[in-house]
């Protein structure tokens, strides 16, 4: 079973995402900000990270660069998840190390298709 770390400051969003990912046969872990997400990654690097764009305390570009520098940090497929859907943001986060980009609100069909797109399913 593949693992997915869900990083979002909203508990509600994390629960919704976790339910969808569990239906897609993922083992899920949750983190509410970049710092705790990094410590989860240092302990055990997940296969997939679903990362909210607007996290408190740490800009997502900084998290992307930090996690990619970790041991094994190139391995996870990282899906940015955001309400900001303009093309400049997209280019920016892809440059910083994200693999995919999903706009909120998403559902099981769109998340599943995105994960298939990056070979995570």
């Amino acid at each position, binding site marked *: 079973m593949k693992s997915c770390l869900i990083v979002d400051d909203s508990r509600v969003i994390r629960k919704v995402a976790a339910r969808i990912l569990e239906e897609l046969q993922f083992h899920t872990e949750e983190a509410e900000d970049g710092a705790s997400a990094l410590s989860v990654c240092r302990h055990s690097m997940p296969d997939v990270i679903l990362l909210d764009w607007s996290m408190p305390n740490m800009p997502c570009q900084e998290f992307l660069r930090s996690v990619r520098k970790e041991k094994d940090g190139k391995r996870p497929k990282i899906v940015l998840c955001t309400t900001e*859907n*303009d*093309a400049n943001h*997209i*280019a920016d986060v*892809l440059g910083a190390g994200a693999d*995919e*980009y*999903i*706009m909120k609100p*998403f559902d099981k*069909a*769109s998340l599943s*298709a*995105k994960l*298939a*797109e*990056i070979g995570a399913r």
Partner: protein
Amino acid sequence: MSANDFAFLSDLLKRRSGMMLPTAKSHLIESRLAPVARRFGFKTVDALLHELPRGSEGMARAVTEAMTINDTWFFRDRAMFDAFRDTILPAMRIRRMTQGRIRIWCAASATGQEAYSLAMILQEAELAAHEWEIELIATDLNTDSIARAREGLYTNYEVQRGLGIRRLVSHFTQTGENEWRVSDSLRRSIMFRSFNLLDSFDWLGEVDVVFCRNVLLYFDDATKRRVLKKLVAATVRDGFLLMGTAENPHEIVPELEAATDARGVYTRTHPQQKRVRA
């Protein structure tokens, strides 16, 4: 809705589109026909259905179209598009080397996602740079769907289903908060027209690759056989026919043979080969 009204609707759909309407699917009636009822000034779907036998051609057509819309998304059944890119296209490039021309037909393209997925693969294969002439034809029964496909506008939700972010960024521009537009070059690469599979295929000519996915399964056996035979006849002898993964056309037309590991991809076998095997 009375049993008579249901029977009339079911008969109308079968006559005009080949589609079967089992009672199990009757839950679709309300949601699909509510907008049609409003458009024709009825308070309820029941009132629309009651009037349908005496209704205009336009009403019958609107009802048929609303009932036959099917869900679609970009690169639906990815394995099939991979087979198109990795097996079918390379094979056709060799087989059509002299002619320099490949004809592809998307026979039930709905709102265009499948046709644009093919157009993206074709553009990424840079065939035009090598002087290939590619004819990509996309048809659907539903005139509204074809109009939408031709316009090439999709919502955030639609562009997320099956479309990777890199393809989104390179083939679309954002034209609104919740709206993306397909590039002009992709739109120009497809010829869209509305077409009913029950009608004559005479305008079409022979096609190298035919996509007709998840349509035949809505037909009764006789219609399925008739349309499938026309589809096979429209496919050139060394071409490919791509069907939905749950359809089993080779059980109806034994001349068809699975062509790749991806389910749903068929070629026509040569009659000689059949004889040898028999």
